[in-house]
């Protein structure tokens, strides 16, 4: 998948003098605030959110971090 934002960022970083950069890739982060008591339950719900809206399984991998 083309990542024009990553490519442009790489170019700009190189122009600023940063050397030895191999690649820049952008990712999307959704910070979801919820009132679930159990982390396991929250993770299950967020996984469902990823499946049904936040990620398209054809091109995306996703990971979930509970804080």
């Amino acid at each position, binding site marked *: 998948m083309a990542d024009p934002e990553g490519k442009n960022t790489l170019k700009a970083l190189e122009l600023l003098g940063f050397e030895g950069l191999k690649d820049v890739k952008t990712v999307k982060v959704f910070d979801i605030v919820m009132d679930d008591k159990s982390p396991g339950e929250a993770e299950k719900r967020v996984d469902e959110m990823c499946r*049904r*809206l936040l990620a*398209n*399984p*054809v091109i995306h991998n996703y990971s979930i971090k509970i804080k």
Partner: protein
Amino acid sequence: MKASQVKVCVLRIEGTNCEEESFAAFKRLGTKPEKVHLKQLTGADVSHEEKRDLSDYQILVLPGGFSAGDYVRAGAIFAARMKSKLSKDLIEFIRARKPVIGICNGFQILVETGLLPAMSGVMSEVPEAVLGTNDSGRFECRPTLLRKVNRDSCVFTAKISPDKVSLIPSAHAEGKLMFPLDRSKKIVRELEDNDQIVFKYVDPEGNLAVYPWCPNGSTDNIAGICNREGNVFGLMPHPERVFFRFTHPDWTRAPDGPGDGRAVFESVLEYVTKRL
């Protein structure tokens, strides 16, 4: 059914911006198009007078644009909103063999909703394909050439000859149709077998060709696909922008006649007037 009785629902939410041209194309053919906000179908925050029922329409159009600002992914929000409240109505509409067309952002919405490619059933639970960022990494906005490869399933292209190279403009940043990489070839073969591939990007001679003829790097040069029954159709280029000859870039030099996009609307109207 007469053309003047055919009601067309041009469905929009915030950020849709091709509803006028889509409306105008159907209006010109003598049908009764209406620009309908999604809220009017779901019944949320609308008055009784504004409320509409999808089953009252014969054709559903998802026009182009940047619905909901293309947040999350192009078409994802529109798709989620439709799925939340309109799934049952949509499935009934499609099962009744009523036609649905998604143009550009509309195609992205159909894919995100799971209504295309719909390899099995009417609507998949999660998307089976994606319209990803163009290989060029740019918004590609210019005339593109299409050749119909559909044999006879798609109700939107019956009046287009397979030899014809149609000029239909593209304007998108995410138009690269992709399937899960490990199964992509198999899926394309299945789509071919099911007669679900409708248009491919070609060069002026009608041959498959790479960029810039194919603006996005789409799998097998695919520009548009339909469901197995042929009544749900999505494509990235904009037929509604070339309904009239005078919106073709070469209109002063080419012979007079209808615009290349007009046949899409005429085909579906013929289907509806004869079959529904």
